[in-house]
């Protein structure tokens, strides 16, 4: 009973995992501290000394999240938001913190509050799309992602997620155009680079769905060169080759895919519990 397709899939199909919602950049002076246990200890001491200081709470929260201690970070984001006047960055971080602990309704309320204060906040609009998709409402998700792209046209991850929802909804022409926009954008992070590479795969899978295996195969040949560990490209290429009657090559791609599958952790719902 594993939920294999979820919002995680659209976060990024490979590369950086994340919870599917974009984390704002930690201020430059905080970035090294996020990875430092000593620094976290110091920030915790500062919070103990002055628990009513919103800046201390916020710095500790960011440091804990930077160290991927998201559950530990949560109460400090809440404390900071209760102590400080609302700001875009803090509300965005608070929304993400709610999502991190599974309080999606609170996350949505927080993003809506932020969007009321700052209607063109592209990150909040994008994260609203992620929440809608988590609820299974792809139409609403596409609307939020579209608004995020309108607010910031060069926002690569929002473009990428918009294209994914368009594809999911069967709007293949729209999705192809949006994926083209992703390919034309310059990535500024590993996640964005991965999104761009995955866009090639997604375009190929649309070509497969449209019954154009030769075009799909040509794209997928590129994807497997660029990203040989892509979790879906070998399988999709096998599908294309099978449709083209190149069965031996298809089998080789399926074998490669099954090797990648076998190497993946079997996570997700109801995992674990070895007897």
């Amino acid at each position: 009973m594993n939920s294999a397709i979820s919002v995680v899939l659209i976060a990024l199909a490979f590369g950086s995992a994340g919870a599917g919602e974009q984390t704002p950049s930690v201020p430059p002076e905080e970035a090294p501290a996020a990875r430092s246990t000593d620094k976290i200890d110091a920030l915790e001491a500062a919070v103990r000394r002055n628990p009513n200081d919103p800046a201390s709470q916020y710095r500790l929260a960011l440091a804990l999240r930077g160290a991927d201690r998201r559950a530990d970070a949560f109460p400090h984001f809440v404390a900071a938001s209760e102590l400080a006047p609302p700001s875009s960055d803090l509300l965005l971080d608070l929304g993400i913190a709610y999502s991190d602990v599974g309080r999606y309704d609170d996350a949505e309320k927080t993003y809506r509050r932020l969007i009321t204060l700052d209607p063109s906040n592209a990150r909040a609009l994008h994260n609203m799309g992620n929440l809608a998709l988590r609820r299974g409402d792809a139409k609403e998700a596409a609307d939020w992602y579209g608004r995020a792209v309108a607010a910031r046209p060069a926002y690569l991850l929002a473009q990428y997620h918009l294209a994914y929802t368009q594809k999911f909804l069967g709007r293949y022409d729209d999705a192809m155009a949006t994926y083209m926009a992703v390919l034309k954008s310059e990535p500024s992070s590993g996640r964005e680079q991965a999104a761009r590479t995955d866009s090639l795969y997604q375009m190929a899978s649309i070509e497969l769905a449209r019954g154009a295996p030769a075009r799909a195969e040509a794209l997928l040949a590129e994807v497997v060169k660029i990203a040989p560990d892509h979790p879906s490209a070998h399988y999709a290429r096998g599908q294309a080759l099978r449709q083209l009657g190149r069965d031996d090559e298809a089998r080789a791609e399926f074998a490669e895919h099954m090797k990648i599958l076998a190497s993946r952790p079997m996570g997700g719902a109801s995992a674990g519990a070895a007897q």
Partner: protein
Amino acid sequence: MTLSPGRRAALLAALSAAPFALALAAPAPAAAKPAEPLLADATAGSGIAYRNVSGAQGRGKGWLTETIGAGAAWLDYDGDGSLDLYIVNGSTHERPADTPGTNRLYRGDGRGRFTDVTQKAGVAGRGWGYGAAAGDYDNDGDTDLLVTTLRSDILYRNNGDGTFADVSQKAGITGSGWGTSAAFFDMDNDGDLDLYVARYVAFDRDKVPRRGTKEAIARTCLYKTIPVVCGPLGLPPSQDTLYRNNGNGSFTDVSREAGILLPAARYGLGVVTGDYDNDGDQDVFVADDSVPNLLWRNLGNGAFRDVGVESLCALSAEGDPQAGMGTDMADYDDDGWLDIGVTNFSQELNSIFRSQSGRFFNDVSTSIGMQASYSDLSWGMGFHDFDQDGDQDLFIANGHVYPDIDDYGLGTTFNQPNTLYVNEGGRMRAAPRTAGLEVARSFRGAAFGDYDNDGDVDVFVVALDGAPLLLRNDTPAAGSWLQVSLRGRASNRDGVGARVTARAGGLRVLRERKGGGSYLSASDPRLHFGLGGATKVETLEIRWPSGRTQTLQEVPAGRILVVREPE
């Protein structure tokens, strides 16, 4: 993982210049469309008093055993021409494993009333029941029953006098382990029914932590952030069993010789048999939970080979294993080849694998409209022509496994209404949720059959922890129909594996007498043909499993036709 500038420019140019390919060729449109299908809740007053027991109620559930529910079987056990109903029931972990069961057999009167005859018939079962299959394994003219349980399989032979005998041991039905769905089918076309039993987990409650305990959470028995029952991933899977009929009232376990024992067993939940490659023998598809599905191609020599991955029906379009639950095979696009449906978890689409002339399948779930199933957690399924316009619609039973899912704002709920997809030229449109389709419970097994003999297909759905749902098909202005009841001679008496093609008023309608199908359940053995506006079937061609063919001409619509295999 980077695109070089030159390669990127070339790709962009190629993508911009080339025209997009044509959309998938749509199947031929069906006959004139009737009104929306109407499935009325006919449970009240039917006499069906069954309530499902699946361990602790609701949020008290601690183990996987308590979550997957049970199924039912439509069968005519007394041969009176009216469907009777067998409903499997679960148990609790507090009750000893060999405790007499609480399964129910209801005798139908053909008009919508059912009488409990369980005690007289002697089919209450034992232990914790899950699934049922029905078939005349001894070719004596009455329908026998197979029941799967947490510990062993039970074979009930129909004595022909309204009673059954438990012949499991005597007949060699000795497979052990958590059986789920089962299918009677003739694997070797030798004229008797063999038996495939899908199995799930080798479950030992003493070795599995209870939901929500520290040990369970430490073993990541979580769904997103919600503590849930452990498994199936992380629990040992159980091998399926294939029994070959010896022709003398007994079976032999041929799982090893037939090649269905896997180096790593799967978590089998749904099973259906059908001739997907049109080579005249029955193949087997198994829906597996969280691991790749199996398509056992019948090699025609007593052995099977799994071709699921290379045939593109083992995984999603993205190559991911999904949480397969129920399954069915049908020619939903009327191209003469059987397609495959699989129900899956919420936030996975239910899968429709469209056959490409039997060579392989394409996952067309997104392109034919299954996005409507994204939030549903689905189980029983069946392709049937509910509006009788000549193409097969799709009914899916829904309900979540985690009783406290409602608290987490995930866009899904524990109780869910069922879905009826209307086939519109090969696209599936979810029908409005009216009448019986408004009822929301945590549904599981679904069995399909014309219990009131009015010609259309009705549905019985088992719900976890509660009362079931009897859905009577009251579709207004539905098309005409024909039902075909097969009687094999050289072939198995039930005609399982027979393929029947009706030509009527420009329609060409293919049905195959399948084994298994849906989830933990068995459906009406009669083949149902919706005929749109046609008043007769011009030709009815039958390909029997024995290889004989038979053609009937000018068959009037609106009747249940018994067809006997020629000598």
